């Protein structure tokens, strides 16, 4: 016998182990070692969240009540997985191509990025999941109760709802910790997936162990088990054809449409080929989970007291045989089944709620719309955390109100029928181009209403929503509206009744609605992309022309993806176009890719709406679609090779164009260079000459003599500095500079630079934000030169930042072997046209801003960074003027010297 307090300790230990596994997996993934984290075995094991506590405890109870019927729940999914080539493969392909974040997102994206559909699907899923989560809490609480009642020497079980509350709280904590760490582009959660894979193993091993013990330990082997089955109350198999087929169908549908299954099957999928393994391994898992269900049920029925709850045989059988350790293992198995379901389901639902409800509402409420989105990322993460907590609270409330009664199997089936309502819209969406948003909305809403009316609400019992009278005579005495005998057709099994009517009307409305309505251009495009997911380059582009400003898009994307992510995405895209810097041309292709990238974080509908604010009027029209179609006809004659070549040409042309523009600007600058030098030299010379002539006048008063000598002195210093700068620049440009490589702490270098630069406009109150802990890192470089660059940037900010309360933010970090330091002020920044000229010699932005320099500072900075093997660039879209300095952690020369 296991004392209850030991059980609690084991339970806590197990939870800590899960935390550690999840944490270790996250750490590995962060370091990019995803190797075996993403193997087909892990993928298959993660699919096992199909088997919840409903399977672990409920299947035996189901078998004890209805014999072999329980197996239909596993036959349906088996058929779907064995037939993976038909549906699953396409779903996964579409999910990856469109960066789908949830099943609601899939439906919304397919039907013209309609958020209405996303909301309907989210609603269905939340309604279906609430009792399901309650069911998991109930099973954990019940299993605790079993141990508590058996062991009076242990702790008394507190209060059943208190136990459930603790479990719900713990699960919320785990899920928030590992499920909302980031807005990963593909919504992948390595830690969570690893943890549920581990739980999958535990529950399988536990159930098999109990099964083996029951067959060979309690009964005397297979032969005796068969004899016992024949002698048991469930010896005969009263197969009801309708239920047999209906349940198989509904289970097959649910495995495709359950939000948690969609999450692990499609969203977390990293490689389409894993499906091939899962196609046989997952049915095998289900097979093994079901193998001993019947023996356990039969032996339990014979062995246990007549009143014993068959839902708990898995636990009570070993306990009654005095096998405390085995019971403990079984307990952990049930605990694993319950927790893994709750974790994944709440992550999947929280994603839907945040992407389809919270963010759209927030966007609609904001005055500025998506143009000034600010920190959407933080909002989304917070929305997800709150949603997770709210879902568990809902589940707990349901459990509390329903009093933890009712057989487990009934609740599970109600949820299955609910989510299965999504099936027509889903299958229609991926196989039928004619399916439209209106059809899908009609079908889904009708299915939802009938499911609620015929199954969900009656499930609360006569004390619940529908009184016994309503059930028997229909609302307001309307007999044909009786919830369990619609249209006066009586005598159908209530579950089948609900399945039959909801599916018939749902599918019917979906088809008729689709046939009668006309899709919008975006719908038609998405329809093509989904249905022809396997054709190369299927679908037209979503945006016909650019029209958006890259800089605006960048600053919006930073609010969603995070600054780092967004900048590297834009930089890479600019690189693909053959451009340097962070601002690619806003071609339709680029906008399309950006939209997908954003969709991975906030869902398709929201991403589309946000982009639409910038590319107003540029969204594709029906005419564009037709144009694309006829264009495509012509392109047919050209081979793909030609296409690739023309793309290459376009890239080269763009690069050439850019080089050309720059050359032209440079030649204009070269022309003015000499006259600028001349001007810069002549100005101090003029003062010097004029005042020296004045000083020659013997009658000049003494105090003026003094003053004019000072002027001459000042001007000679200015002249010297100018000559120094010019000389410095020419040495740097010819790469003849002698570098003095030292090791230093970046933090100290920045300190030094800020100290020195404070001499510039010392009268200004100037706030500098720094993160000292991030700055402590060694740099190996010519530290004096680096400080020179820093001084220049800081004093430029002091000089030119035109904000009322000037602020400068310095961000330092290490990225891919490079030290990156950003200097961002809160002024009005540098206009786009001038951004690429500021690093040229004598390029002062305006003549009014001649604060003593000759316009050589940034040119020198650029040359210094080039000499140090690094770069300096203007960083657009940061709100103010922003410069990024990047240099290798150790210079090239040191590396080669060490290698030698």
């Amino acid at each position, binding site marked *: 016998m296991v004392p209850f307090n030991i059980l609690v300790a084991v339970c806590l230990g197990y939870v800590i182990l899960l935390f550690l596994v999840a944490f270790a997996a996250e750490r590995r993934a962060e370091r990019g070692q995803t190797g075996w984290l993403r193997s087909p075995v892990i993928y298959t094991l993660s699919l096992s969240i199909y088997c919840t506590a409903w399977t672990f405890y409920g299947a035996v109870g189901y078998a004890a009540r209805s014999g072999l019927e329980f197996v239909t729940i596993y036959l349906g999914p088996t058929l779907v997985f064995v037939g993976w080539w038909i549906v699953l493969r396409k779903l996964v392909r579409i999910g990856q191509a469109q960066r789908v974040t949830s099943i609601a997102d899939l439906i919304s994206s397919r039907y013209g990025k309609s958020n209405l559909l996303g909301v309907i699907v989210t609603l269905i899923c939340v309604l279906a999941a609430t009792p399901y989560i309650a069911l998991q809490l109930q099973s954990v609480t019940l299993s605790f109760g079993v141990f508590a009642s058996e062991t009076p020497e242990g702790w008394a079980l507190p209060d059943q709802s208190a136990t459930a509350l603790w479990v719900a709280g713990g699960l919320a904590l785990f899920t928030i910790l590992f499920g909302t760490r980031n807005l990963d582009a593909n919504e992948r959660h390595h830690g969570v997936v690893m943890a549920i894979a581990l739980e999958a193993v535990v529950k399988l091993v536990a159930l098999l162990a109990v099964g083996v013990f029951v067959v060979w330990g309690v009964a005397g082997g297979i032969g005796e088990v068969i004899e016992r089955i024949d002698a048991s109350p469930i010896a005969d198999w009263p197969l009801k054809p309708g239920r047999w087929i209906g349940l198989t169908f509904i289970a097959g549908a649910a495995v495709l449409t359950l939000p948690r299954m969609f999450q692990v099957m499609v969203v977390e999928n990293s490689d389409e080929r894993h499906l091939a393994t899962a196609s046989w391994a997952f049915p095998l898992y289900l097979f093994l989970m079901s193998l001993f269900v019947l023996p356990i049920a039969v032996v339990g029925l014979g062995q246990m007291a007549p009143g014993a709850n068959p839902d708990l045989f898995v636990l009570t059988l070993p306990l009654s045989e005095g096998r405390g350790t085995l019971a403990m293992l079984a307990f952990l198995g049930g605990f694993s089944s319950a927790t893994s379901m709750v974790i994944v389901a709440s992550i999947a639902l929280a994603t839907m709620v945040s992407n389809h409800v919270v963010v759209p509402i927030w966007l609609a409420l904001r005055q500025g719309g998506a143009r000034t989105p600010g920190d959407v990322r933080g909002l989304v993460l917070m929305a997800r955390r709150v949603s997770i907590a709210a879902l568990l609270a809902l589940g707990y409330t349901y459990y509390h109100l329903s009093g933890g009664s009712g057989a487990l199997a009934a609740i599970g089936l109600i949820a299955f029928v609910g989510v299965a309502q999504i099936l027509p819209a889903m299958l229609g969406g991926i196989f039928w181009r004619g399916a439209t948003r209106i059809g899908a909305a009609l079908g889904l809403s009708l299915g939802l209403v009938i499911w609620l009316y015929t199954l969900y609400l009656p499930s609360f019992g006569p004390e619940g929503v529908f009184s016994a009278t309503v059930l028997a005579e229909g609302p307001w005495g309307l007999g044909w509206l009786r919830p369990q005998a619609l249209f006066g057709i009586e005598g159908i099994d209530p579950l089948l009744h609900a399945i039959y009517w909801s599916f018939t009307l749902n599918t019917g409305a979906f088809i008729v609605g689709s046939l009668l309505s006309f899709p919008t251009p975006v719908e038609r495009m998405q329809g093509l992309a989904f249905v022809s997911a396997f054709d190369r380059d299927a679908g037209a582009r979503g945006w016909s022309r650019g029209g958006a400003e890259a800089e605006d898009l960048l600053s919006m994307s930073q609010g969603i993806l995070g600054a780092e992510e967004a900048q590297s995405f834009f930089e890479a895209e600019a690189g693909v176009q053959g451009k340097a810097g962070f601002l690619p041309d806003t071609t339709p292709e680029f906008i399309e890719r950006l939209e997908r990238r954003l969709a991975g974080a906030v869902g398709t509908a929201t991403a589309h709406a946000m982009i639409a604010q910038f590319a107003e009027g540029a969204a594709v029209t029906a005419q564009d679609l037709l144009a694309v179609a006829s264009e495509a006809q012509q392109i047919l004659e050209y081979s793909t090779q030609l296409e690739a070549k023309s793309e290459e040409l376009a890239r080269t042309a763009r690069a050439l164009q850019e080089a050309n523009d720059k050359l032209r600007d440079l030649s204009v600058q070269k022309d003015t260079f000499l*006259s600028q030098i*001349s*001007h810069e030299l*002549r*100005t101090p*010379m*003029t*003062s*010097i*000459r*004029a*005042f020296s*002539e*004045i000083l020659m006048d013997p009658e000049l008063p003494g105090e*003026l003599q003094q003053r004019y000598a000072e*002027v001459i002195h*000042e*001007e000679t210093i200015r002249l010297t500095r100018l000559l120094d700068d010019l000389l410095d620049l020419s040495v740097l440009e010819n790469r003849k500079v002698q570098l003095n490589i030292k090791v230093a702490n970046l933090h100290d270098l920045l300190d030094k630079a800020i100290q020195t630069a404070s001499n510039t406009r010392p009268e200004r109150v100037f706030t500098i934000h720094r993160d000292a802990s991030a700055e402590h890192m060694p740099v190996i470089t010519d530290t004096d030169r680096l400080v020179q660059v820093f001084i220049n940037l800081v004093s430029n900010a002091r000089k030119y930042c035109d904000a009322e309360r000037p602020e400068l933010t310095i961000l330092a970090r290490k990225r891919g072997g490079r030290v990156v330091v950003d200097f961002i002020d809160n002024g009005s920044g540098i206009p786009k046209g001038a951004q690429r000229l500021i690093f040229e010699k004598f390029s002062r932005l*305006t*003549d*009014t801003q*001649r604060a003593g320099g000759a316009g050589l500072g940034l040119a020198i900075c650029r040359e210094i960074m080039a000499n140090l093997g690094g770069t300096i660039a203007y960083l657009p879209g940061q709100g103010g003027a922003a410069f990024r300095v990047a240099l290798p952690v150790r210079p090239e020369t040191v590396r080669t010297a060490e290698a030698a």
Partner: protein
Amino acid sequence: MSGRVLLIEDEPHIAEAIRYILARDGWAVASHAEGQGALEAIRREAPDVLVLDMMLPGRSGIDILEDLRADPALSGIPVLVLSANGQGEARMAAEGAGAARFIAKPFANADIVAAVRQMAGA
């Protein structure tokens, strides 16, 4: 000699020098340091001679000169243009725009005085 000179020059030291030179020669010198508001300053001061720098913040000396020539009330004022951009094009541009005299920086103080005297007398 005596009369009013308006000096439009942004470099403070150069302005100071010219003011001293002309003041010692007996001129009343007013000055203005940027391109913006230069025309208003000219109307206000109504100088006998205008000394104008070419490269000014805000508006260039040439622009001011052209506006001046377009305004019949001001077009009579003789203008001495100063430039740090040497001879050649700058001189042509200035004279094309209607400058009476052009002197390149750096200059001899005596040249400035002589030019102003000559222009005021003419």
